[in-house]
């Protein structure tokens, strides 16, 4: 493929420009800012940019101030045939005249370009058929190994990295990601860390889930309790009604009974009142004078009665004493024995003078006296004879007093109309009995009518009758709503049980309400779930990335192995042929390591392989260029892209430049070469020089 002419309109700094090229070496020369890079870009845009693209790079390539898009035209030759490619980015269409046919299909045009150049994209073109200034200068300055640069070229990426570096990078990235997944690591990788975070979050979530479920259960339980309490309340109400009515029935019955009893009492009170009235009348009629005397001379009469009673008592005592004193006090024989004794004593005493035997009679007389006085009690008898007389006198005195008192009492009693004390006493007793009865009645009435309102008794009795009637009506109302006392006890026990159950439920309900009033659990659970979702998504991405890295590694290893080994074999023959030609057979045999692209050169002089480093700088430059250009052929297969060189030998001295240009010259026999430069050093090698002027 050869470019004959490139015409640009409204492309960046070129409003309208046309550049002609020839086969062989073309040198595009101009100072900085004259548009060399723009020309390279225009050429590549003409080849690879899509005319209907909206990409920013396309949009921003229109010359400043121009409203329409740019147009690129490329005329050239392929295999002896002319082509004319037009890409109108304003009209968003492309056309290719080729072998007398106008092709407008973008895909078909792309196919032709790829077939002619052997390269399908601008990136591929730049990395394969474009040799940058720094690419060569880095090798010549020893900053980069020749093999590294070749690896980068065969890698084909727009970057400068090689496939081996890419493999290292992928391996490192995967290792970092999976660090700690097969055992413990001091600083575990993201996969391990995310698993730990998820595990924590799941535990928290499970706990919260359980707690929330418990709360839901609690709410349901609370509801059940509410319903049970309502049922219980209804049952309790029924039982309480039954118990209340039954108890009321008993109370009413007791009330009625009480009212009856009180009614009877009131009837008794009425009878007592009546009796009291009668007694009052009797008192008035029968005991009027007695009452008057008793009221007027009560004290005197009382004193008289007291004294008389005292005198009578004294008399009675004295009489009993006299009676006891006048009873037999000595033996019956004692007086006789005293008389006999005294007689004998006297006789004896008189007879002593007569005879001493009479002394014996005296002694007998003495003994008889002694016996009569003491054992016979006659001595005491003689002594008590004196006391009896005194008693007799006292009795008489008292009998006189009694007589006087009796007379005085009789005088007073006579005023009552009683003929005697006895009748007085009898009347008085009757009166006192009457009074006692009245007192009894008064006491009873006090108990029956405590407020003393005896006049209200009848009214009260009527009221009680009314109450009884009312309660009897109530009893009728309660009929059928009550139970008998025995059943009532069962009802009350059942009610107690229900109340205990109710209390228990109430307590449980309060506990649940307190538990349910705790805030935030549901929100915490939702947040935990949301956090878990966030973490799981992160984990999914990390796992995806780990799998992707493994997959990328597999593809990369396979692609690298196949590419490097294939390229190495072809490189060996291509470089050998190339170097043999330009070194006139000095170096014609090159060995390329298929794993690293390290080069070894056969030296005919030394009859041995030598390291590249041992060769002269100019030879190394030639070797690199030979290898680099060989790679263009290898990569592009049957394609022949114009070689774009961006002032690659700017740092070379004239000798090195000459050696390098020998390689380029050789290459340009088959391929078009376009060198972009600021200087004149390539002019002597050029088949055509295109001069660019700075654009103001």
């Amino acid at each position, binding site marked *: 493929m050869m470019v004959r002419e490139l015409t640009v309109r409204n492309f960046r700094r070129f409003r309208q420009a046309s550049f002609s090229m020839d086969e062989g070496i073309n040198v595009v020369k101009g100072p900085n800012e004259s548009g060399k890079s723009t020309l390279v870009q225009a050429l590549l845009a003409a080849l690879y940019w899509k005319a209907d693209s909206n990409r*920013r790079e396309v949009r921003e390539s229109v010359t400043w101030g121009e409203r329409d898009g740019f147009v690129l035209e490329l005329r050239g030759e392929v295999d002896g045939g002319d082509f004319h490619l037009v890409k109108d980015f304003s009209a968003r269409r492309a056309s290719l005249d080729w072998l007398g046919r106008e092709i407008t299909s973008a895909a078909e045009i792309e196919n032709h370009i790829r077939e002619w150049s052997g390269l399908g994209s601008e990136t591929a073109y730049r990395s394969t058929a474009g040799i940058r200034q720094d690419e060569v200068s880095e090798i010549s300055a020893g900053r980069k190994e020749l093999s590294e640069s070749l690896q980068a070229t065969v890698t084909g*990426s727009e970057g400068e990295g090689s496939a081996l570096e890419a493999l290292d990078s992928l391996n490192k990235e995967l290792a970092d990601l999976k660090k700690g997944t097969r055992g413990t690591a001091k600083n575990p990788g993201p996969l391990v860390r995310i698993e730990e975070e998820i595990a924590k979050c799941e535990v928290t979530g499970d706990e919260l889930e359980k707690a929330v479920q418990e709360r839901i259960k609690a709410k349901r339980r609370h*509801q059940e309790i509410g319903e049970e309490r309502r049922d219980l309340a209804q049952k309790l109400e029924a039982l309480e009604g039954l118990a209340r009515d039954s108890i009321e029935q008993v109370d009413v019955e007791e009330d009625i009974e009480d009212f009856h009893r009180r009614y009877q009492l009131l009837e008794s009170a009425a009878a007592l009142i009546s009796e009291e009235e009668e007694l009052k009348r009797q008192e008035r009629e029968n005991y009027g004078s007695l009452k008057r005397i008793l009221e007027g001379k009560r004290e005197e009469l009382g004193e008289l009665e007291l004294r008389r009673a005292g005198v009578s008592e004294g008399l009675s005592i004295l009489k009993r004493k006299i009676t006891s004193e006048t009873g037999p006090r000595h033996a019956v024989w004692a007086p006789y024995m005293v008389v006999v004794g005294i007689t004998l004593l006297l006789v004896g005493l008189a007879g002593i003078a007569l005879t001493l035997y009479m002394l014996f009679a005296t002694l007998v007389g003495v003994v008889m006296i002694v016996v009569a006085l003491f054992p016979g009690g006659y001595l005491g008898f003689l002594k008590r004879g004196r006391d009896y007389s005194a008693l007799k006198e006292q009795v008489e005195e008292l009998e006189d007093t009694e007589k006087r008192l009796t007379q005085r009492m009789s005088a007073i009693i006579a005023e009552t109309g009683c003929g005697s004390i006895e009748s007085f006493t009898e009347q008085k007793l009757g009166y006192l009995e009457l009074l006692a009865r009245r007192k009894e009645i008064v006491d009873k009435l006090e108990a029956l009518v405590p407020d003393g309102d005896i006049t209200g008794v009848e009214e009260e009795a009527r009221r009680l009758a009314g109450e009884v009637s009312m309660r009897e009506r109530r009893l009728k109302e309660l009929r059928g709503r009550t139970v008998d006392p025995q059943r009532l006890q069962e009802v009350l026990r059942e009610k107690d049980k229900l109340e205990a159950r109710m209390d228990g439920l109430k307590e449980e309900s309060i506990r649940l309400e307190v538990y349910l009033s705790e805030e935030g659990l549901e929100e915490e659970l939702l947040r935990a779930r949301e*956090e878990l979702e966030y973490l799981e998504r992160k984990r999914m991405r990390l796992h995806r990335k780990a799998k992707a*890295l493994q997959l990328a590694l597999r593809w990369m290893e*396979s692609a690298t192995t196949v590419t490097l080994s294939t390229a190495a074999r072809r490189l060996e023959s291509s470089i050998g042929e190339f170097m043999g030609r330009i070194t006139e057979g000095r170096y014609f045999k090159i060995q390329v390591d298929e794993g690293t692209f390290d080069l070894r050169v056969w030296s005919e002089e030394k009859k041995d392989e030598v390291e590249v480093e041992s060769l002269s700088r100019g030879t190394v430059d030639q070797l690199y260029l030979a290898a680099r250009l060989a790679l263009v052929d290898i990569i592009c297969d049957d394609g022949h892209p114009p070689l774009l060189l961006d002032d690659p030998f700017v740092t070379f001295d004239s000798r090195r430049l000459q050696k390098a240009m020998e390689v380029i010259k050789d290459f340009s026999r088959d391929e078009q070469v376009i060198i972009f430069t600021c200087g004149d050093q390539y002019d002597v090698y050029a088949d055509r020089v295109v001069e660019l002027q700075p654009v103001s």
Partner: protein
Amino acid sequence: MAGLRLLHTSDVHLGAGFEFLGRSGKDHRAQLKSTFSRVVDLAITSEVDAILIAGDLFDSAYPHPGLVGEVLYQLERVDAEGIWTLIVPGTHDRLQPGSVYEGKEFSTLPHLHIFRESEMAPFAVDGLDLTVYGRATLQEEGDVLEGFHASNDTRWRVGMIHASFILPGKVERDEMMVSGESISRSSLDYLALGHWHSLGDYGKGGVPAYYSGPPEPLEMGRGDEGKVLLVELKENGPAEVKPIPVGRRRLLRTDVDAGDLDGPAELYAALRRMADKELALEANVHGFWGEEWAGLNWDDMEDELSPLFFHLRLQPSPAELSERDIDAYPEKTVIGRFIRLAKEEMSGRQGEDALVAEEALRLGLASLAGRTSRP
């Protein structure tokens, strides 16, 4: 009374979890409460006669006390204005033992009625010459409005139901269903529907029937704002149904064609232009391919852009390599062989495997270009 003004909302889903929003879920949950408050504000300022909540006010039958308290507070505000609130329990806040509507919390509001019946039951609204028919949501077969006919005891007759609309061949099974035919025979002046999360007119036979959709969006979709419906029933003329935006956030799932973009920087710029602190964006990015995309780290880009959105998720689609894409890389280069191997293996992959292969391709290209995205 010349007419009646109603505010129809449903599917508020207070207390819902938003796992798809990850750590932003809690903020959206808080927003639902805030939006419900705005709904109440709107009801008060619009001087509506009643608010119809057609199910799923809560996301759970057992919401936590704080949430119940918030709703109670908001309903007290409308109650104080003499505005009626009518609620049907939905599929989420289902009527069941111990559930929120069985509690005593709402029994204190004189202008609140909750339909707990298992059949369409009438509720005559004091002072409005209005009967509202509603029922709790239960698992049922068939058309729940079949045979239903509103009586003409009052001037206005409105229905509320939380059910799916039967669309033959599309929607034929759900917990509760309602058909166009039964709606047309219902004699209702308006049917407030709930359950479907998008606004829609399903009226039939002159009976207006609408899904209001949620007041705040609940799932990723078209990025519409949440709305409520302001319904004007007029003495002479058809009902006027006006959607009023009340939602704050938009939840948008969209496809981003990266085919015309030069690379991650342009994708970033394209997404950056969509940035909105109230937008949750799930961008399904496709059409990216080539070395210029090699250095893209989705997580990094997501992390960088996320603060500009309420929530952002970037979802790459597996690359589909054409022959032209592949031919751009010479086969005799490592990259050319790598891409051809990738293409060969990717052709048989689906789903997650395809995504893995896509990422492998991108990571490989990145490593070849000397750009790595270390974890």
